[in-house]
């Protein structure tokens, strides 16, 4: 098995789209054989990041795919927006840091919930967050 098994792109423009993203991510998680706890972790991380795309990034697109390589199955999510970007990523990742009088736990929390986490951001150009979650069949874990 190699390359993306399936990829879905979902536009993020409203609360309802976040519900949709959670649903699609849940489907990928179930299909990849994740336990209920892992499903919940991944769906929750996706919900956090999609909400950031909507609230801070002014909307964007989320891509969900399940990939398999010689090491096993990974669910990959990409959250992309062309919003204001993040000035100081380290600060944004700090628990409790928020520019929105919210809880400020979304970015740091999402990073703790998943296995792979990368942020690409440039002030004024937008933000792309990529996460990966490994299915239990993955070797070498």
């Amino acid at each position, binding site marked *: 098995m190699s390359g993306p098994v399936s990829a879905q792109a979902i536009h993020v423009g409203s*609360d*309802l789209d*976040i*519900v*949709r993203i*959670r*649903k699609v991510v*849940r489907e990928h998680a179930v299909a990849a054989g994740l336990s*209920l*706890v892992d*499903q*919940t*972790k991944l*769906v*929750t991380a996706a*919900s*956090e990041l999609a*909400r950031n795309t909507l609230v801070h990034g002014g909307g964007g697109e989320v891509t969900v795919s399940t990939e398999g390589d010689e090491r096993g199955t990974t669910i990959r999510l990409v959250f992309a927006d062309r919003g204001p970007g993040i000035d100081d990523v380290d600060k944004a990742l700090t*628990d409790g840091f928020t520019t929105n009088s*919210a*809880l400020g*736990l*979304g970015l*740091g*929390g*999402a990073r*703790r*919930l998943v296995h792979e986490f990368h942020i690409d951001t440039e002030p004024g150009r937008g933000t792309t967050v990529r996460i990966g979650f490994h299915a239990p069949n993955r070797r070498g874990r």
Partner: protein
Amino acid sequence: MQDINVSVAEFLDHHGDEIVDAWQRRTFFAGRTGGDCRAVLNGVAEVVLAGRPEDPTAAGFDAIRDLLGEIAMDRIRRGETAAQTAVTLHDLKPPVVELWTSSRDGDDALPGALRLSTALDTLRLVAMELVGGESADLVEERQQLLELSTPVIRMWDGILAVPLIGTLDSARTQATMEGLLQAIVDQQARVAILDITGVSTVDTAVAQHLLRTVMAARLMGAKCVISGIRPQIAQTMVQLGIDLGDVTTRATLADALAYGLRQIGLVVAAADNH
């Protein structure tokens, strides 16, 4: 002898008012107009007349497919399970078949009853078609769109509960929370239970809603208890870093009620004779 299909269709037409009246008192049509019942009845009469009571694609059913689906979905959105809705649909059959058999004693009594029974079974299939195609998530999605309010339940004098379901981070949540706070004032409640057994994801937005509600309730003199935090949700919340602080939590709604009763000075004890 007149064609049985014609006899049955005529019977439905002649007894239309009686059947509509009986149906309106059945659960499935609760809150619906007589016009809706009449439309469904006309559809049934049409498929019987066409001799196709077993065919869900018959023209008579096509005409009422959307209406039936809408009623069924509405019931499910309000918290009924698909199985329960199917039972309420089944309840439509007895009044019609009984009326038919009590008004006939000739040879056509049995074949007519069979046709009516078949037509109403098919009706149930037609109504549930739409439901089957919709996943729980879609129901959730519609719920969000419609912003249906979650009921605030009075568990005891002074104890309220809100069973939260589906997704919580929408305007709907806001409305639910406001409804709860208003109910606390109206009923002078001392304890408010937020039961999240039916919530699939607690992200930071949901947690913030919950925390804000607990805080507001506290300012109004009511104590909040959050119940029904399932294991996978608890683990995820911990990793996210959500701190419920000194908020009281209980495993189940029943535990939360027991706690609430104690808060208002009541105890639940076994009766002597047991």
